[in-house]
């Protein structure tokens, strides 16, 4: 419980409107997009200015109140569930784009700016911010940085980490820490930004983010390659990369997903196909033509049944609409959707896809697989109903099996969805006891009272 005195102090910083105490309101900050049990915070705080944010962090620390920062609450790993109660701090009122600099190609934002709004503002200036998580219409940039979010363009353009030039964040004492700069090169001090990206709110609270921008590619071309054989499709992925072509996007969809998408959105997908690859190349128009032709002939060589190249923007949109609706289409089939993101080195994609089929048979579960084949980040999506206890046990066992398989191939537990609560118990499997202890020592040094998002990533 938080004392009345502290509540009064919160109110004096934020005004009564920024402090939610009512049980009903608190209830709505007890969950996120992960399939986990909700936990109620004691208070929810909504700062509108950055100095308020710093004061709140200090006050929480002084009073040893656990503190969980929340952006849009769309993470899939329980990162914003306040497992120890305490305070939830909302960043969605800190939503200013402070600067977009077209000469030096960077932008400065507050943490609560919505990803898609930012991408649109940048595009309006003829520039490009590539990280595009599926949740971008609502996710916040702070949440993206704290989760090191990826997206469809990871293969060529990298992930959020690759765009963070600098950060200003509050340490647990409410002291501002600056790292990185507005310059391409910067060696001033430790590279703290690298530590903070993906830290899921466990080491500090972001106040400002400096993001790298790049010029908008002048041309792009999309196509869909249809395969009657799953193995051929996945081998094609490997072949494209081996031939030194780096598409902006290289997405995979299995037959189950194809049928679900077609049933749902009638975009004209071949429902008999074993697998689809959705490919887009971009860059200088001449280069685009050349790459597209190469990819097309490679797909043919590898045994693609048919290749549909988008001839105009409309056809291109169709290709991507098919991909974008994949999750929705699957989600509509069953009440509970478990979206996994175990990731393997891309040469292992064929093997992983095969393993997923086996796992789906072994545990008698419906699994639709789609995802970012180009970077080895597949999304096996388990469809279930969590009210069915017996089936839910099988789901948990299947998740374990997926993790084991990915790790045995030299892969990782999570390509982009983070560790949070959902995967922290697996962390040691992938790393080592030493890694966890080392991380805990860093955490203990930076957050001696353990108030910053306790229990996340490295457990306790």
């Amino acid at each position, binding site marked *: 419980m938080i004392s009345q005195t502290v509540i009064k102090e919160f109110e004096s910083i934020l005004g009564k409107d920024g402090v*939610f105490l*009512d*049980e*009903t*309101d608190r*209830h*709505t*900050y*007890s*969950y*996120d*997009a992960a*399939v986990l049990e*909700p936990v109620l915070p004691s208070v929810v705080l*909504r700062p509108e200015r950055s100095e308020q944010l710093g004061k709140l962090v200090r006050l929480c620390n002084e009073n040893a109140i656990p503190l969980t920062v929340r952006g*849009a*609450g*769309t993470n899939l790993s329980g990162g914003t569930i306040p497992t120890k109660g305490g305070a939830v701090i*909302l960043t*969605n*009122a800190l939503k200013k784009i402070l600067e977009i600099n077209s000469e030096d190609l960077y932008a400065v934002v507050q943490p609560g700016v*919505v990803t*898609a709004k930012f991408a649109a503002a940048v595009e309006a200036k003829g520039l490009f911010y590539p990280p595009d998580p599926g*949740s971008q*219409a*609502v996710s916040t940039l702070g949440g993206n940085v704290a989760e090191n979010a990826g997206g469809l363009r990871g293969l060529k353009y990298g992930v959020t980490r690759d765009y963070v030039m600098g950060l200003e964040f509050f340490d647990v004492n409410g002291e501002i820490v600056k790292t990185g700069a507005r310059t391409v090169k910067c060696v001033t001090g430790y590279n703290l930004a690298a530590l903070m990206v993906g830290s899921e709110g466990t080491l500090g609270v972001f106040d400002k983010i400096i993001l790298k921008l790049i010029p908008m590619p002048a041309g792009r071309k999309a196509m869909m390659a249809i395969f009657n054989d799953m193995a051929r499709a996945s081998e094609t992925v490997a072949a494209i990369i081996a031939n030194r072509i780096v598409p902006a996007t290289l997405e995979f969809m299995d037959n189950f997903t194809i049928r679900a998408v077609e049933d749902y959105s009638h975009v004209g997908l071949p429902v008999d196909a074993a697998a689809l690859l959705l490919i887009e190349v971009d860059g200088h128009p001449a280069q685009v033509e050349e790459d597209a032709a190469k990819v097309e002939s490679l797909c043919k060589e590898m045994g693609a049944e048919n290749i549909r190249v988008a001839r105009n923007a409309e056809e291109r949109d169709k290709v991507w609409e098919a991909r974008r*609706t994949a*999750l*929705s289409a699957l*989600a*509509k089939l069953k*009440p*509970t*959707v478990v979206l996994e993101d175990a990731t393997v080195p891309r040469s292992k994609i064929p093997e992983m896809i095969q393993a997923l089929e086996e796992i789906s048979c072994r545990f008698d579960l419906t699994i639709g697989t789609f995802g970012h084949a180009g970077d080895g980040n597949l999304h096996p999506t388990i469809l279930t*109903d*969590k*009210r069915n206890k017996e089936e839910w046990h099988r789901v948990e066992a299947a998740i374990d099996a997926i993790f084991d398989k990915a790790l045995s191939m030299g892969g990782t537990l999570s390509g982009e969805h983070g560790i949070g609560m959902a995967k922290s118990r697996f962390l040691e499997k992938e790393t080592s006891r030493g890694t966890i202890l080392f991380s805990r020592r860093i955490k203990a040094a930076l957050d001696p009272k353990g108030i910053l998002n306790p229990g996340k990533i490295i457990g306790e």
Partner: protein
Amino acid sequence: MQDMKKLAQLLKQIEDQLVVCMRCGMCQSVCPVFAETGRESDVARGKLALLDGLLQEMFNDSDGVQERLLRCLLCGSCAANCPSGVKVLDIFIKARAIITSYKGLSPVKKIIFRKMLARPELFDRLMEWGSKLQGIFIKPVDELLGTSCARFTSPLGDRHFSSLAPKSFHRMVPYLNTPAVDSGMKVGFFVGCVIDKVFPKIAQAVLHAMKHHDVGVFIPKDAGCCGIPALSSGDTNTFNNLVRYNLKVFSAEKFDVLVTACATCTSTIKKLWPTLAEELSPQELDRVKDLAGKTMDISQFLVEKLGVREAAAAETGEKTLVTYHDPCHLKKSLGIAAQPRTVLQTNPAYQLREMTEADQCCGCGGSFNLQHYDLSSAIGKHKRDNIVESGCSVVATSCPACMLQISDMLSRAGDRVKVKHAIEVYAESLDKK
């Protein structure tokens, strides 16, 4: 303390729909209320989680949840965008009814819904009385909550009301039954409360257009309210009675299509009558389904049944710029967006120019406007800004409730933009022919 176990039992009937929400949070991108407040309890995900909380008996009373459930425009933006296909509006409306039946309807609402709305002649007389006494309205009518067709009755605050028409439409045309002529087509015309009492000119425009196309029209005497005010306040009893009543008065004649010029009535009849009306006999249910199946928005009727098309472009001369606002109940719940635009472009005196975010909710939402006027205005302000920015001198739409809200927003800002129904623009072009 309330018996939360009993409430949880009652809520079981929506459990299967509730579990469909995967808490992805994507509804945050479209909810007009959330866009203003940033509060999770204002967005569908939060409200669904609260209902789930009631179901799990996590609360000591239902007041907090009920209050938040009512902070909602029932605009359906969330449902139209939900990747998981959660039937958000169905859930919200059912939940309102369940909580209300469990807690009981407030005495004022009871009087209004049970005694007035459910008895159309009485309601009509009261409204007429009201129109003569504008500004000194009686208290119970002020509190006529829960409705897009009721908010005009409240003379509170500094809002700029579209006042009640001096003579409501049913006074001008109490009953109509004209045969199908050359077109071979006959329509039933569901006027709806707001058009009847505030915008009779819209109903006149409908009749004008029907006459022009030689379409027969049937308007029953004392047609009732579509029932949405009662339903959204959780009074299923009155809703059921109104559905049954309308069914009766409209079965007196045969017609091919039931037309309305009110987006809210259209979507209520089409989507809510067949699914939410209870205690109907199987025969009655069949008839409700039949009626709902043949209900059409007036623009949709003009385009799809009468083949109305845009005027040829070549016309020269001064044109009036018109922009179009998509009512949520038309676009998001029924997918009707192209037809009204076609209708606007039949009139060569106008030129259509889109505003940004034409399908953003205007913020009216019936009772929402009454109970949360500031929030409703804040949402409406964005609409107003987009309209003004379009540079048009007329804004057209297809729902009289949206017209009330938009008129209020524009006139409070002192803008000189006229608000019209698409059918009015259409009827003007007929005048000239």
